[in-house]
């Protein structure tokens, strides 16, 4: 518990944590509500979304879908950056050295970092939900729509959001440990999350096996899970796999990323 408490204390007071959470909240509000609201009220709407689709996307009862649809790509990239920075920076600052000589076992130290990041990620998803719900209620009230609060189904979407966020967190932690620094970890992570998988999807339209592969890559699995729980209309959301299959792949990625990062941390010399 001491390791989790220590990591929470330092992540809580780290400006980067709040800057990244803030950026994500602004993005989810802007792309999820502000632009849709403007489109509804005189925008050009080149995506051919009907008025009813725009209204539906902003209804409070669909807030679960609004939360999960942003996470496969842009939200995931932000979470990955946070995790990669949180772990990778420790090498440059020398804080891993301080941490590992403080007393806890290396496994406990890693568990502390992962536990604290998990708390931050849960907070990020909860804040996303709260901000989206508030925005949807404000818009529905302004527009005078009949609206209702989300039903129990929202927990499925939030659970999927947490699983997607956990996968990107694990990916970021893995990259931070492998590269032993923040810059390369963030660069590689962003490259993968935003560029590489999309390029592969482009190639996949020409080569069948590549297309099948892209569906189960980290971003692809996240997109498929988001699609399966109602997410739509956002980059990275897919509908090729069932929710269960996508969720199983994501659990596998979490285990592999976290397991490999912990194994490396435990076995590798800290020089």
């Amino acid at each position, binding site marked *: 518990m*001491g*390791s989790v*408490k*220590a990591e929470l*204390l*330092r992540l809580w*007071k*780290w*400006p980067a944590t709040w800057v990244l959470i803030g950026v994500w909240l602004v993005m989810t509000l802007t792309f999820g509500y502000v632009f849709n609201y403007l489109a509804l009220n005189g925008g050009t709407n080149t995506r051919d979304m009907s008025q009813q689709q725009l209204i539906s996307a902003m209804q409070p009862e669909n807030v679960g879908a609004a939360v999960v649809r942003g996470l496969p790509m842009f939200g995931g990239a932000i979470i990955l950056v946070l995790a990669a920075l949180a772990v990778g920076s420790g090498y440059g*600052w*020398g*804080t*891993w*050295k*301080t*941490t*590992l*000589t*403080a*007393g*806890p*076992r290396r496994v406990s*130290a890693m568990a*502390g970092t992962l536990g604290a990041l998990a708390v931050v990620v849960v907070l990020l998803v909860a804040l996303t939900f709260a901000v989206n719900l508030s925005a949807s209620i404000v818009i529905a009230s302004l527009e005078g729509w009949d609206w209702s609060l989300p039903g129990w189904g929202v927990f499925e979407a939030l659970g999927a959001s947490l699983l997607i966020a956990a996968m990107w967190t694990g990916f970021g932690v893995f990259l931070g440990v492998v590269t032993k620094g923040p810059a390369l970890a963030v660069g590689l992570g962003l490259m993968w999350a935003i560029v590489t998988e999309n390029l592969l999807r482009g190639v996949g339209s020409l080569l069948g096996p590549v297309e099948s592969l892209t569906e189960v890559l980290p971003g692809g699995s996240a997109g498929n899970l988001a699609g399966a729980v109602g997410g739509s209309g956002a980059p990275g959301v897919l509908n090729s796999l069932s929710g269960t299959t996508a969720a199983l792949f994501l659990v596998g990625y979490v285990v592999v990323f976290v397991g490999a990062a912990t194994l490396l941390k435990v076995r590798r*010399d*800290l*020089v």
Partner: protein
Amino acid sequence: MIVTTEKLTKRYGDRAVVDEVSLSVRRGEVYGFLGPNGAGKTTTIRMLLGLVKPTSGAARVLGEAPGTPKALLKVGSLIEGPGFYPYLSGRDNLRVHAARRGVRAGEVEAALEQVDLVGAAGERFRRYSLGMKQRLGVAAALLGQPELLILDEPTNGLDPAGMADMRDLVRALAAQGQTVLLSSHLLGEVEEICDRVGVISGGKLVAESTVEQLRGDTVLLIRADPLEKALVLIENSTRHGDVLHVRETDAGALVRTLVAADVDVQEVRPLRRTLEEVFFEMTGAA
């Protein structure tokens, strides 16, 4: 013995960075770990703290295997400069460290007082001077009242005043009975503070003894006339140019012997090798 190593070795490929080092640190002493840059001091210390795994050999720290929680909780360390979060204050950094060590938060203030950092404890670490950073590192090492303090180059980068402060701090800790393993390449510092020293060169421990033993016996320099007569009169004397060197500490007796034999004694003074001279001799550094 509070620390023992037996043929401790670390190899990177074919290169032995630490080569069969067997050293021992006794409870209550300040042990100076000397060596030129790149001699293997830090790697040895990292192995004692479990940060680096030895290729072969063994080590025990307070009776435990290095790097285990049992050992680490009894050891405070500062290795190659302090590693703290730059955006946190000195106090918050210590709180984080205290949480990891399972030390109650109240000890943070005591540690800050001990290194005279209470006034600056609220400032962010990144704004600290090098000396303040080093002192915060020592404060972190002191949390949990460790039985052994390992300080690797604690005066690195400090100005003369900062170095003097750090020496005083180590001296004060030693006076309280704290066991300290102090790694340094600053020989004056080690000579002033340490009870025993280990000298490492090229990864090998080339000597381990008290500072006095390392410097060897005191030699008396005698300038006398006629020198040949003095050479005959004094046993174990050797001629070095126009002076004699004698392995004898009773200068009064020597002078009486020479004067009684009608030899003019022009100069008598002790000649003592400094630790620096011994160090250069042993490590081949200059």
